[in-house]
């Protein structure tokens, strides 16, 4: 039987399920705490929803029904025994398939790791389990997180719930689409050049790239080690904050993890929701806007800036001249590191093995396996990076890119001497059509133009929906950037803006997701 229904909201037609899947994580947590609903009921509702909309969305690579229900039962038992593990205990979550899970496969969207179940949990995975969060499954992504559309997944693209002919962003399109399709109330993404924020922007959801080192990378399958950062995704700023506090914090297993107290992001989100931004200085980045940006995106951004002014923020324009070189620097540093990080996929110890028929040398098997196991974008970046690191080219490419990185960091430092946060559109355009940019990698790379500087500098950054573009009716994201370890500023400003936006636009943006075909 096929029917159509809106997101997860009350008009879904499957009243009980919709009543639960339409709630925010904070609302679910409150109901769980009050004993009005059990985690098993919530989890079942989400599993049903996943079964119904997955054929249309394909947000998941793996759904662990049994494991999720078992975790839900444990959460209920713990709560009944008066020892709920955290505020989010019993709340379901979708995990990007780039974080290791000892009880589920971890493929990174690649044939190379098809069917591979890691022998250990990532620190993020462990913290989620310890908080009693229920892991529904693993979400789709561009292969090894390389891409901006999830079209580079070896297992087929994920579709954007706002328009299933369009991409959900990438690389973490699966996590954001799962939120927008009400298949999960919370999700984890990873962001190397925008892979949390850009999907958040084009799916009308909230995505946060915490300060580099704020969340452990132990168990995050590396794309570009100096840029990768796991972070929370949610349908609201408060939900993202609740999740942020669960996964953040120092981890001795990650040497680049920051050994400092986690910023008080939940408190900041609650404070921001009160709607007062007086005394907050907001800088509009001159270099991130104007020519090349979609008209509707620019209009939505300007409206958001006006909204911030109306909330009492002091808005000024700020110049970050080196941001113009960010994309170029990124496409040298990230491929360089990836060429080295992905060298380990050699058929020797785990994953795919091709051509091992007894007649070939180890080197030949390695070569055949890598030829067969990696998709074209991954190969492109490995080759780019191998070239950039080569003797004789290192200084001109990798070396120069690191200098640009330093200059961009200085731009941020100088800007944050004048303002508390910086803002820009999250992406230059709304979601493009599936297949539209596959043949043109350079055009694809432009999707990360605004998000990349924060990765290069390692500071905190959020995308919060700013409404729909008036020309195509698709979601637009407002990017908020804060200094390293000042993640709380994102949540204060983001929550204030979100509340004002909903008030001005007549309700939560996410509830305007069109109806999805239901299986």
């Amino acid at each position, binding site marked *: 039987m096929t029917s159509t229904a809106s997101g997860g909201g009350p008009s879904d037609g499957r009243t009980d399920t919709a009543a639960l899947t339409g709630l925010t994580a904070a609302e679910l947590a409150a109901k769980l705490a009050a004993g009005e609903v059990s985690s098993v009921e919530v989890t079942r509702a989400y599993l049903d929803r996943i079964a119904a909309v997955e054929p249309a969305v394909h947000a998941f690579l793996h759904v662990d029904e049994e494991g999720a229900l078992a975790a839900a039962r444990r959460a209920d038992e713990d709560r009944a025994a008066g020892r709920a593990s955290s505020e989010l205990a019993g709340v379901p979550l979708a995990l990007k398939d780039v974080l290791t899970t000892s009880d589920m496969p971890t493929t990174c969207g690649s044939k190379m790791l098809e069917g591979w179940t890691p022998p250990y949990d990532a620190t993020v995975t462990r913290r989620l389990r310890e908080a009693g969060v229920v892991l529904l499954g693993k979400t789709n992504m561009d292969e090894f997180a390389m891409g901006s559309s999830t079209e580079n997944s070896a297992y087929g693209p994920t579709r954007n719930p706002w328009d299933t002919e369009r991409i959900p962003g990438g690389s973490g399109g699966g996590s954001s689409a799962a939120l927008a399709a009400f298949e999960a109330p919370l999700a984890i993404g990873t962001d190397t050049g925008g892979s949390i924020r850009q999907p958040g922007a084009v799916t009308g959801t909230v995505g946060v790239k915490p300060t580099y080192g704020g969340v452990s990378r132990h168990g995050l399958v590396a794309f570009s080690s100096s840029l990768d950062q796991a972070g929370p995704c949610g349908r609201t700023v408060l939900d993202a904050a609740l999740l942020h506090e669960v996964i953040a914090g120092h981890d001795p297993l990650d*040497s*680049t993890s920051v050994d400092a107290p986690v910023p008080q992001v939940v408190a900041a989100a609650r404070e921001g929701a009160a709607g007062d931004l007086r005394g907050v200085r907001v800088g509009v980045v001159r270099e991130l806007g104007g020519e090349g940006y979609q008209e509707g995106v620019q209009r939505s951004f300007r409206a958001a800036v006006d909204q911030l002014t109306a909330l009492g923020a002091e808005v000024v324009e700020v110049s970050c001249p080196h941001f113009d070189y960010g994309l170029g620097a990124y496409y040298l540093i990230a491929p360089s590191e990836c060429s080295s990080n992905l060298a380990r996929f050699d058929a020797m110890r785990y994953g795919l093995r091709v051509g091992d028929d007894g007649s070939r040398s180890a080197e030949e098997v*390695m070569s055949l396996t890598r030829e067969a196991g990696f998709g074209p974008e991954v190969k492109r970046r490995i080759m780019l990076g191998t070239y950039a690191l080569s003797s004789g080219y290192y200084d001109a490419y990798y070396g120069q890119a690191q200098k640009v990185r330093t200059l961009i960091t200085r731009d941020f430092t100088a800007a944050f001497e004048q303002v508390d946060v910086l803002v820009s559109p999250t992406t230059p355009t709304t979601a493009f059509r599936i297949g539209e940019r596959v043949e043109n990698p350079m055009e694809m790379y432009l999707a990360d133009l605004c998000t990349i500087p924060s990765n290069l500098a390692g500071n905190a950054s959020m995308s919060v929906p700013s409404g729909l573009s008036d020309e195509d009716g698709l979601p637009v994201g407002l990017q908020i950037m804060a200094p390293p370890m000042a993640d709380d500023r994102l949540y204060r400003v983001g929550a204030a803006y979100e509340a004002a936006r909903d008030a001005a636009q007549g309700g939560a943006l996410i509830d305007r997701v069109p109806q999805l075909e239901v299986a």
Partner: protein
Amino acid sequence: MTAVAEIMDYDELLERFDPVLGLEVHVELSTATKMFCGCATDFGAEPNTQVCPVCLGMPGALPVVNGTAVESAIRIGLALNCRVAEWCRFARKNYFYPDMPKNFQTSQYDEPIVFDGYLDVVLDDGETFRVEIERAHMEEDTGKSMHVGGAAGRIHGAEHTLMDYNRAGVPLIEIVTKPIVGAGERAPEVARAYVTALRDLLRSMRVSDVRMDQGSLRCDANVSLSPKGSAEFGTRTETKNVNSLRSVERAVRYEMRRHAGVLTAGGTIVQETRHFDESTASTSAGRPKETAEDYRYFPEPDLVPIAPSNEWIEQLRETLPELPWERRKRVQQDWQLSDEELRDLVNAGALDLVAATVDAGASPAEARSWWVAYLSQQANTQGVELEALAITPEQVARVIELVSEGKLTHKLARQVVDGVLAGKGDPDEVVATEGIEVVSDDSALQAAVDEALAAQPDVADKIRGGKVQAAGAVVGAVMKATQGQADAKRVRELVLAACGQ
């Protein structure tokens, strides 16, 4: 192709060329855990039992630096008179090889932890030669491949290859010398003396097992020749698989002679890796380095820089033990050795053994005599290092004790030592089972005593007059006459008795 040239006579080559050496020594640290994970590092464990996601290069695994290894690296640098970097990083050395789990080695590249030092090495004649140290840096070891089937252990013809990753990630320190010039004819000896000195130093610091036979100390010897008087270095070769101190010397000597032969015949030296063959004392070409390997080094983004504070460095300096050269100086004083005696002791590789024997109760003179003379001969005969002999310093000390108690003569003591070396047990067991004891033939001794008293009538009178301490001179004469085989205590009794005491 270069024509096959004769290797040149050593003396002839020295007339034409000056050798330049460069020695790279890899030392496996004896830390309890690996360089970047918590896995154990025990030698000889079952394959793949000391592994984890980090040292297997599993997706998502991250390295965490072993603090003890960093301390060892700094301590080694301090002992080698190096400067310690104020700030340094790890780098990735990228190349594909099945025994390297990540297909890059986490190493240090242009930012070593310690650099610019020297080691004064003592040559066989007691001369000191200063070897300058370029740098010492930290890195991780690789796994081990075992080729199964086909010719013994060689990759060609092997049916398949097994991998053991227990060694993957074991901490290594690579110590690199600056070009060693001016050693001339003594270049091979300098090479051996340097590795020996380094081994002794690291052993005294207890930072490594320094077992060349087990690979915990590995030496690559770079050799090149310059035409006599020329300041320009020739093309170098790098000889690997040099598994003993003696091989270091022989490999350098062979390469010098081979280079000279090739160059004199008008050929050119190919920059390549060569393998030393212990049985033929020669080298053979390994992997040719036609194109310089491009390792695409870049700073390791998974690790943060190391910035040792001055306080920390000074604390580590405090932990340095008495270093070999300090020890030699002290021993020379304590044991009152001449320069020659000290040199013989050091050359015999007997210093530690003698010290241990002294610690077990023996006199330095007796202990030194046993190790440097009789036991060194036995080691030579057996073709093993002195320390490899099947006798412990404690056992030697016991033999010395038995002699001083008069239970053994020197001659019998050698029989006991031979028994211990033959695996017949402890000295006391050998004495018991072999029935070795001093046969006191008083009649023979009596004659010698009478003779000695007759030769020294004034001394005899003194003893008769009650000056029993004068008996020593007579005892000495008897011992000399009997070539030390008599029991000194019994001789003394006989002397005193003959003088009515």
